[in-house]
């Protein structure tokens, strides 16, 4: 069945792959972006070229008013959001000793506050639909920890606790709330690491390579589908066997 899907941070990397996947699965996709308008429109064009339906929607998802108006725009164009993918995320890596308050706050606001704001905004529509899928992106950093990422890992671990709580709140209403925790995936975010570190990481992965954004999107596609109707409050780790 075709649903309305919102992918936050859908213009690049994993978000882009998720948007393309959900569109390929027959859903109408709202591609949220904060600043990368050109990339977001690129994703929309790619979806439309393949016969899908999509729309780029701008909003800083850490801002309550911006989130409210984004949901208004999506409802006007597509209808109520049935599938919410909380993907928007940033890194501001540094050792804790050197990590400034701004680096902490920015990461928590974009990665965690956005999950709360968007999930809350989507909930009314999902209750009315009597169907819903909330899928949030955590990270292997949030599960195993990663030096230099105290802020990022904290935000990503918090998403897991948040999702388990909300899963219990709304399970009886046919709304599932799950988490996907990617390992090292080839994106702009991991490109920053440099090829030496990337090779080192690949050696620690059971499957011997970094992951592709499409491989994360496939997990999201599953959790968004009716096949996953009996899966809630879970964290699906897609890391090629990095954290075993």
């Amino acid at each position, binding site marked *: 069945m075709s649903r309305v899907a919102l992918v936050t941070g859908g213009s690049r990397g994993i978000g882009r792959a998720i948007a393309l996947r959900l569109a390929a699965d027959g859903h109408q996709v709202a591609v949220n972006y904060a600043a990368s308008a050109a990339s977001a429109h690129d994703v929309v064009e790619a979806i439309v070229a393949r016969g899908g339906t999509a729309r780029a929607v701008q909003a800083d998802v850490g801002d309550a008013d911006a989130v409210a108006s984004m949901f208004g725009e999506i409802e006007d164009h597509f209808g109520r959001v049935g599938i919410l993918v909380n993907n928007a995320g940033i890194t501001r890596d540094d050792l804790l000793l050197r990590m400034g308050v701004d680096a902490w706050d920015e990461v928590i606001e974009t990665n965690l506050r956005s999950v709360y704001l968007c999930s809350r905004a989507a909930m*009314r529509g999902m*209750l*009315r639909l009597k169907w819903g899928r909330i899928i949030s992106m955590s990270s292997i950093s949030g599960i195993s920890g990663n030096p230099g990422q105290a802020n990022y890992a904290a935000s990503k671990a918090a998403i897991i606790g948040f999702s388990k709580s909300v899963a219990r*709140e*709304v399970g*009886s*209403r046919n709304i599932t709330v799950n988490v996907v925790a990617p390992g090292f995936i080839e994106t702009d975010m991991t490109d920053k690491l440099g090829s030496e570190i990337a090779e080192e990481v690949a050696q620690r992965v059971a499957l011997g390579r970094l992951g592709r954004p499409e491989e994360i999107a496939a997990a999201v596609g599953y959790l968004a589908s009716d096949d996953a109707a009996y899966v809630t409050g879970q964290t699906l780790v897609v890391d090629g066997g990095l954290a075993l």
Partner: protein
Amino acid sequence: MDRTEIESKLTDLLVDELGIERDAITSNAKFEEDLDVDSLGVVELLMALEDNFGVKIPDEEAEQITTVGEAVDLVEIKLNG
């Protein structure tokens, strides 16, 4: 719309949307204690009221509602000012 009409429509919503026994619904019945409606059910009921009566019920006011009669009062005030 007068109070009787609001009451009757609200009763229908409780029966249809939340599956409550019609006989159990009285003005003094408390949603959570008497009708076994959980807190999320109260939110759903208020959303159904908004849809059906075309009124807007702010969250702060919604939180005050505990009985069927109070829900009728609120809709009546919203509709008739």
